[in-house]
Structure formats: structure tokens, C-alpha cells
């Protein structure tokens, strides 16, 4: 399939790559979490772009509804918010106990 909006897709791939590299390189838990959010948003951008480039007849042929992708982006945002709620609570709980959320300093469970 030809990419109609290839600029958007390239941007999405770049954002995803930046996020993934950030998760690997950054050691501060909040920074890592921001990188994960960036990856989710890259997925959202891709969903919205694809939804825009799939016209009604294409959607009907494959059994989906027009603009499915745009609606999926809303769901992904909701899930990301729920994830942020749980994640930040876990960070706070660990910070209170250990005084740090630098991932390199968590070595209690290393063998």
C-alpha cells in the first residue's frame, strides 16, 4: 500500500524510535515513563494518519468502519492516562521507601 501521508508516518516512526531509545538510555524513572508516553503517542499519530488515508470503500472492503483509527486513538489516550495513574503511584511508593527512583539503584533483586 502506498503511504498517502508518508511525512506523518515517518514522524511517528521517529517518535517511537526516540521513545524506545530513551527507555533504554535514561535512568530516571519519570524520564523513562515520559519516553513510554512518547511511544504511545507515536502509535496514536500513526492511527490517526491511517484512519485519514483509508477511505470509505477501502474500509467497507476489509470489514472496518471509516475513522476506526481516530476513535482508537481516543481509547489509547484513556489507557495511557490510567497507566500514568498507576505508574506514578508506584514511583511515589518506591520513592518514599528508598529515597530514589533512579533505576540503576534498584539492585535488591539482582542475583
Amino acid at each position, binding site marked *: *500500500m502506498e503511504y498517502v501521508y508518508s511525512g506523518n*508516518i515517518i514522524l*511517528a516512526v521517529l517518535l*517511537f524510535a526516540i*521513545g*524506545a531509545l530513551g*527507555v533504554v538510555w535514561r535512568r530516571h*524513572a519519570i524520564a*523513562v*515513563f515520559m519516553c*513510554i508516553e512518547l*511511544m*504511545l503517542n*507515536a*502509535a*496514536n499519530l*500513526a*492511527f490517526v*494518519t*491511517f*484512519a485519514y*488515508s*483509508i477511505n470509505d470503500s*477501502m*474500509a467497507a*472492503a*476489509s*470489514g*472496518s468502519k471509516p475513522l*476506526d*483509527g481516530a476513535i*482508537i486513538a481516543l*481509547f*489509547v489516550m484513556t*489507557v495511557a492516562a*490510567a*497507566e500514568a495513574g*498507576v*505508574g506514578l*503511584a*508506584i*514511583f511515589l*511508593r*518506591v520513592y518514599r*521507601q*528508598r529515597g530514589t*527512583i533512579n*533505576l540503576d539503584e*534498584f539492585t*535488591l*533483586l*539482582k*542475583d
Partner: protein
Amino acid sequence: MQMPHIIWPQWLPFLIPLIGGIGVLLFDVFSNPESSRKACPAGAVATCLLALIALYKVFADVAAAPAYLPAEYPVFMISQFSRDCIGIILLGAALLLTLSPRGIAGKNIRAGEYYGLFLLSVLGMMLMAASVELLTLFICLELASLSIYVLIGIEKSNANSGEAALKYFVLGSFASAFLIFGAAFFYGHARTTFLISESHQLVIQGIAPYIALGLILVGLAFKLALAPFHLYAPEVYDGAPTPVSALLATGIKVAGFCVLAQALVELRRWDALDQGATWALVLLALASVIIGNCVALVQRRIKRLLAYSSIAHSGYLLLGIVVLSDVAQVGTPQLALTAISVYLLAYTLMNVVSFGVASSLGGRFEEELSNYAGLAKSHPFMAAALTVSLISLTGLPPTVGFIGKFYVFAEAAKTSYIFAVAVAVVFSVLSAFYYLNIVMKMYMQEQEEGAPGVERTLACDVALGVSMALILLLGIAPGLLFWMM
């Protein structure tokens, strides 16, 4: 816009855990801690058993044609295979919930939060096993995962528990991001997010959809703890409260394998799989079998050992899944699916018992393996239960572990990847060393002087006894399995 027409009875097996989970959470708020400590576990176990009965009553005849839910926008499919997987998840959850009161005793955990979240995460796993659409899969996976992140870190006074929660959260959401990004590209190319659809053929062309499916596989492989995505497993299993480690090792894996198997059956039906995809799965399976078994040999802590053993078992299971994707394999996938569901049942029972013994004994028995020396003398029942489950994990008769492994390997040997089966058999012989080493410790070695005994509770004995009986009974008379399913 017309609202979807919902037929209530079909949703009953899923509504029961939802209502049960929220009910348990609310009950805890409005009652005193003493009574909720007694009522919450009972309510949670009853919820799981009710859901199990409802599941088999409502979906009694899905063997002929799978049920699609909801009718207008069928994002869930209950086939015979996914129904059995959901049943296995519920059975495992009921047993683990029975073991939980002892497992979380004295750990400063609020009963309502623990049992409520446990039920909600079980609901997430059930829905995940049934989902055939990528967004639904993502949301259900997140429902299961978000509850589990909290459950892992629920032991507030324990630094290990918090560290495990942090690690699993960071890596788990990283994996989910891969899954949803893969889903976006799958949507862009196949123009639908449905992996399985009753009415439409899935059209896959070119290399891009395979990259998308690969990203989705990475996300799932993380949840299934397949090598090389297994690095979190030993640490998280070790740090989490033991019944939660067991849920991580059983429930979410059963759900993940169910999704993977159904997706592969569908992709092969539309002839959308090539040799490369199968090879990727074979390599993942072999890596898991080899790494899991080799690293388990040198473990000194019980839960780390069980974590590596569960990685190895994921590898064996994936070999069974490979059968479904092998293009050379002709005929219906029904036999292979049956083999996988038998193995999943066996795997769940064995892990419930081995984690269950650790959590029922508690304290030092959740840590170093050397503490198991002389257990046969001080706690003969626990030692017997652990022995049965370890023999089953090794895959020796007369246990259900043998039956499961035999079926899966026999199916996999029919494909052109027979060398992979040979490697798996060799490494499963190797696994006898570390499994039977524990048995030897329990029966041949003497206990340390002055080690305190552990009091037994009826609930633990019942749960372990039932699972042990099932392991032996289904091992001796495997025909019962087909009568049950």
C-alpha cells in the same frame, strides 16, 4: 446511531468477575478489617467458581461454531479453545485465591484491595483470551496488567515488592507500547484491526504487515516471558507476593498463548503466513527452552528457579504453537489446539502447586532452596505435594505434565521442525536435575537444628490437595480430560 443490542446471558461469565471484583472492593470499604479478612477471600473464590460454571453453561455448544460477542461488532470470539483457556484461567485463579489468605498473612495488606484487584486482573485475562481485535486485546491486556502492577507492589513494608512493581511497570508498559504501535501499522496495511473476523477475509500483502505483526509478537512475548524478553521474570517473581507471582506465571500466560494460537490459526487459514514467521517462532521457542533450563540449573532461590522453569515451559508451549503456523502441516488445527490446551491446564496446575507450597509454608520457604532440606519429616503433606508437582514439571509419568508434554511434542514432531523437538526433549531431560534436586533435598537431607515449624491451614490443604489430585488423576486417566472439556 443505534445502540448495540446486548444479549445478557452471553456476558454472564464476564459480568460475574466484574461485579465480584467491585463488590469485594466496596465491601472492604464499608466493613471492619477483621470481617473483610474473612469474607473477601470467600467471596472471591465463590466468584471464580460461579464464573467457571456460567462459562461452561452458557458456551456449552461452541464446539460446532464459535460464538461472537457482541453480535454487531464482534470483538470477542469464544471458540472451544478460548473457552477452555478461560476455564483454565478461572480454575487457576480459584485455587490461587484459596491459597492467598495464608500467602498474604502478616504482610500488612488490605484484604479488599488485594482480592478486588485480583478478580479484576483475572477478568482482564479472560477477556484478553477471548479478544480477536487488536484494540480490545490492548485494553484487556492493560486491565490485567494495571491490576497486576498494583498487586506486585501491594506489600507496603517490603522494599523488594516495591522494586519488583517498579521494574514490571516500566518494562510492561514498554512492551504494551510495542503492541499498540504494531497494531497501528497492522491497521494501516490490513485496513482493519480485526485479527479474526466472521465475515471478511484478512488481506496481507508485502513485508510491512509482518513487521507490524512482529511488533505485536514482541509485546506478547514479553508478557509470556519468552527469551530474550524474559529478563524481568526472575526478579519480579522473586519480589512479588507469592500468590501474585503464581498468577503472573499462569493466568496471563494462558491468555497470551490463547491469543497467539487463535491468531495463527486464522492467519494460516487465509494463507497469510510464510516460512519466515514460523522460523521466528521456532527460534523464540528454542531460546526460551535453552536459556530457561540452563539458567535454572544454578539458581539458589525457589521463586527464581520457578521463574526460569516457567520460561522453559513457555518455550515448550510455543513449540506446540509452531504447529499451527507451519505451512507444511496440513489438516485441521484441532489436534494441535487440544494438545496446547491440555498442556496449559497441566502447566497451570503444576505452577499453582509449586508456588502454592512456597506461599503456604511462607517466610524462609519463599527464599533459599536450602531451607527445603528435611521438609519431608516436618511437613510430609507439603513435601508430597511439591514432589508431585516437580515430577509433573519434569514431565514424568504418571502425571498430567507428562501427558501435556507428550501431546505437544508429538504434534510438533509432525512438522518439519523435528530438530527443535529433539532439542526440547534433551533440555527437558536436563531439567530433571534441578527439579529432582529439590525432591532429594526434601527427602534425603536432614533439617537444620531449631528451625521453627509452620502451622497449616485447612484452605491451603484443600487447594493443594485438589490440584495434586487433578495432576495425578489426569495423568493416570487422560481420557477424563476430554470428558471434562
